[in-house]
């Protein structure tokens, strides 16, 4: 066992330390937080022999440049990102041994939006209510360090990793086939007229540039949506699709407020949330309705496929 220190020479565009987040505190108004592409985050941890909920670095659009002091075992997953270790192009989706004194240079993301970097070991970072995920709306003093800044550093208690892994090709995400988002009809679906409903399912929607960890919004508005008087506030979940008064569709994500008063017309199925977490501004998507049994079957398939990298 030894300590390895990572120094962030360049922080990247928006790099956060994320785990699964904190579920079950919505009743106190706390959003769940956590990795936007949970699948990639878990895979990165499994590739370096960590437990699934170990912290990772979530990198958005542009990655950081890191100097290592002490040997490290890392893996990079998620959106396609340029990885160079000591100027040498290096593959994603496998266990990498990074010798002490190396420069890990994570460049531009070319497909998808968010990449994940796992590092073997126990991270010396702050936790709050059993998660390291920083909250968006308030800057919690004790989790500020989990938003990576220039010249910040990270210490990990690590060890030699003998068992190196590479993810099978068929388990890697295909960012060219991310555009079909499967949904279950939501509690207020019937507040849309027949023609609204058919527009919802037939339209190729464009991802709005104002999309972030709170919500992924659509550019196209549903025409002639009859404005509702405000509904009595009720809970939102990750993947809830809201329809606001302007007829705009908003997919609520990990950092969204816990309650709201807009019609909830559909919910993205659990196994497609990772796709939504990787949608880029300008991309085209469509919504396909499925039933709950189908969605549960997808969760089972997903779980089984990940067993192979335990």
């Amino acid at each position, binding site marked *: 066992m030894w300590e390895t220190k990572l120094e962030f020479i360049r922080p990247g565009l928006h790099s956060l330390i994320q785990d699964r987040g904190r579920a079950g505190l919505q009743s106190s108004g706390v959003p769940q937080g956590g990795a936007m592409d949970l699948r990639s985050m878990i895979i990165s941890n499994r590739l370096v022999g960590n437990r699934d909920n170990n912290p990772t670095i979530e990198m958005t659009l542009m990655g950081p440049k890191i100097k290592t002091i002490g040997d490290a075992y890392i893996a990079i997953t998620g959106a396609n990102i340029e990885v160079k270790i000591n100027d040498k192009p290096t593959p994603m989706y496998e266990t990498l041994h990074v010798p002490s004194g190396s420069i890990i240079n994570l460049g531009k993301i070319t497909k998808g939006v968010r990449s994940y970097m796992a590092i073997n070991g126990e991270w010396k970072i702050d936790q709050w209510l059993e998660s390291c995920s920083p909250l968006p709306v308030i800057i919690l003093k004790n989790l500020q360090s989990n938003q990576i800044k220039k010249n910040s550093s990270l210490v990990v208690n690590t060890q030699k990793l003998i068992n190196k892994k590479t993810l099978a090709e068929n388990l890697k995400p295909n960012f060219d086939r991310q555009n079909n988002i499967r949904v279950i009809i939501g509690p207020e679906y019937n507040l849309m007229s027949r023609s609204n409903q058919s527009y919802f399912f037939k339209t190729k929607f464009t991802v709005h540039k104002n999309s972030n960890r709170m919500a992924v919004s659509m550019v196209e508005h549903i025409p002639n949506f009859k404005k509702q008087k405000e509904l009595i506030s*009720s809970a939102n979940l990750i993947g809830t699709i809201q329809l606001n008064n302007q007829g705009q569709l908003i997919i609520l994500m990990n950092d969204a407020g816990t309650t709201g008063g807009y019609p909830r017309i559909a919910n993205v199925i659990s196994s497609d949330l990772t796709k939504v977490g990787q949608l880029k501004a300008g991309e085209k998507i469509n919504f396909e309705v499925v039933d709950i049994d189908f969605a549960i079957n997808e969760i089972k398939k997903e779980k089984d496929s990940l067993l192979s990298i335990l």
Partner: protein
Amino acid sequence: MNIVPYGDHALLIKFENKIDFEVNQKVISLSNFLIETSPNGFRYCIPAYCSLTVVYDPLVTNFAKLRSKIESIDIKNEKKNVIKSRIINIPVCYQKNYAPDLETFARSKSKSVEEIISLHSSKLYHVYMLGFLPGFAYLGKTDESIKAERRASPRLKVPAGSVGLAGLQTAIYPYESPGGWQLIGKTPIKPFNEVKENPFLFQVGDQVKFREIGADEYKAIEIDIIVNKFDTESLIDVGN
């Protein structure tokens, strides 16, 4: 009570569609009952004014099973659903520097500032739900005569501890944030204290009473909180 699917791992229980104490008590009773009995596959609840979202593990249970389980609960005959009545007493300073909207609001209601203070601080409020921001409790209902419109343009920064009015609701901003409520006072008490093991002062079902204090007492409490000498428990009366 109407139970509908809400995504592939949650269900939504809809009660009578109104903001009402009796309806909200049913939401909270059922929520507490589910938390205490934790049916197979149950994960957690998110109570709101007149709805309860129940999140479950779809690999352990399913919508139909959980729905029939919930439908079979006869909440009136269950002893476990007793709502523990806590009364939380919140000191509020309504003086000018602490209450930027109070005078204008009083004028719009053709009342004196004193009348507004008395109407606001004489009622026992009920915590209907938490939401919007961590630790933000929706308290109600206020007296009809102080029903408030939201500000036409929301403030970008409402200071932590501000006490606001909107509709028939009142609330304390847990920390500095944007907000459109009418600000009629301020409390030194922190409804959200991140360094505490349980950071949230309020939970659904609590009752809240505001007590008018002067600027001197406000500052004294504020200092006690900063030097960690303030006992939050002293604010709480536990009923039967």
